[in-house]
């Protein structure tokens, strides 16, 4: 079931409104392939992906656990902890707490582990372009 794709006209891509080309690119724009291959960029990309994918897995599994408990373990969720406050209510509020915690954690991490490297790569790219 492969789709027949006509050969693609490759000329017009940059002449037009290539998205992201905010300003008409200067004749010698940044060399994206070179930056892409540089060890600094490869390291940054690896570090970024490991962190965000890991964090995403953590909050997704935690959220799913909560949802499955609410769907299939109603008696457990209905257990009264103190007064009329149920386990379900507390777990729900913990979802709020974990969201705040993950946000704060990412903010701190990105500030120290991502932003300086991005700045360095940008500075290097500008130096070369000049």
């Amino acid at each position, binding site marked *: 079931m492969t789709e027949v794709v006509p050969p693609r006209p490759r000329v017009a891509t940059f002449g037009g409104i290539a998205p992201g080309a905010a300003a008409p690119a200067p004749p010698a724009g940044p060399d*994206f392939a070179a930056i892409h291959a540089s060890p600094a960029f490869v390291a940054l990309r690896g570090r970024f992906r490991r962190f965000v994918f890991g964090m995403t897995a953590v909050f997704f599994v935690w959220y799913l656990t909560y949802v499955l408990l609410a769907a299939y373990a109603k008696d457990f969720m209905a257990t009264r902890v103190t007064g009329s406050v149920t386990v379900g209510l507390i777990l729900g509020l913990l979802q709020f707490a974990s969201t705040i915690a993950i946000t704060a954690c990412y903010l701190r991490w990105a500030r120290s582990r991502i932003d300086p490297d*991005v700045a360095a790569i940008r500075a290097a790219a500008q130096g070369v372009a000049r």
Partner: protein
Amino acid sequence: MILASEGVGNPTLNTAVFAAFVVVTLYVVYRVSSRNSSTADYYAAGGGFSGVQNGIALSGDFLSAASFLGIAGAIAINGYDGFLYSIGFLVAWLVNLLLVAELVRNTGRFTMGDVIAFRMRKRPVRAAAATSTLVISFFYMLAQMAGAGAVVALLLDVQSKAGQALVIAVVGLIMVLYVLVGGMKGTTWVQIIKASILILCVVLMTVFLLGKFGFSMTALLEEAAANNSKGEAVLEPGAQYGSSPLDFISLSLALILGAAGLPHVLMRFYTVPNATEARRSVVWAVGTMTVFYVSTLVIGYGASALVGSERILDSTGGVNSAAPLLAFEIGGTVLLGIVAAVAFATILAVVAGLTITASASFAHDVYAGIFRHGRADAASEVRVARITAVVIGALAIIGGILANGQNVAFLVALAFAFAASANLSTILYSLFWKRFNTTGTLWAMYSGLGSCLLLVFFSPVFSGSPNSIFSGADFALFPLSNPGIVSIPVSFVCGYLGTVLSSDKADEALQKEMEVRSLTGIGR
């Protein structure tokens, strides 16, 4: 009926507070929008907002009538199951924070289409992006306008369907005016003003309610259970979805995965100057929304405790009127007037945000990107966007009149399912998967959108249950009222298959460029 005889509020006062909001915001919109002729100004406010401002505007865009009226109502009637909406809507922002906001900000300029068409064949992908943007915006808008009808009925004491239709039309006209006069800059200021008032309002109500119950959650919950026809069941999961846990899971998936695919949320990331500010806006949005959603829990249970579930369901606005009725109960006519105005302003602002997104997508992706092959001049592109805004405004008014009375939070959850199915898979694949290509993009978007439309059409939403749109007929072949659990995986799988099975190759140079741009922001 009962309410009319009890005289809930004072329509003149309600109208006056609302009119004051409109006048003030229109003045602000007029003042901030002196120069608005370039596409960057009209679509993205020239990228001139700070992260804090944009964060508050993001929560303004996101905290719609569904959040305020819908969730408060759902918690008041169904208790714990309504709380799920609050949790899903908030946790969803982590997807934006970690995977989407900064990368999208660095890669695109104005629309979602900019990102996903970056390294693909422009025309078919832009067409697909515009299609899904328009469908999602339309569903979302329908939900807001349906809410407007309910609020109008209750607060302005307009009982006749024709009268309500007239008020919906007026709301639609004001909204179009915001967009035409203010562009993205004006609309953003409307969101900021509205979000501030809304959050102030719910926080004050929450503090008051907690004070009334001696700051004891147990006292509040016990009173809520006592005055709810479902009794103690509202403190436990299952009051609404007890018979269909799968539906509950489907809804939860759509909620958490939908936010990052909503076109009007994505477009907000372009109004800030760089990725760090985009990150800061999400952080601020998470902060304000946490406050808001915790408050809705108290307000929802508070409405059940003080107003009672039966009175809410019997009122003119039905389930959506829990928050306004509670306001009347605790603060009389004046507080009701304020809550009325806030609810109205919420609807107005969110619909304005949706309108600018849909009009931008049509003008930028379809008109400039497809009809003019990317060679449209800025002035004509903005003109097309303005005309589109008027057309969309007209459609929203008609849709709102037709959808008048439907459950708001629920309709929004459907829009989330569309966003999660059609957009999220495509955005993530194109940002993170090297091999992803044009065929994969088209398969992912159209399969997600198509399966969603089909499943909703054959679901209990359309037929086969007393609350369906066509309650007389029964062609509900699909048992779940939210399609997310099926349509989201379908979209991811089709995106994968389309990529692997097709013969076209991903553009390697552009793929590398996109990776570098998205992470570092070089080139912007």
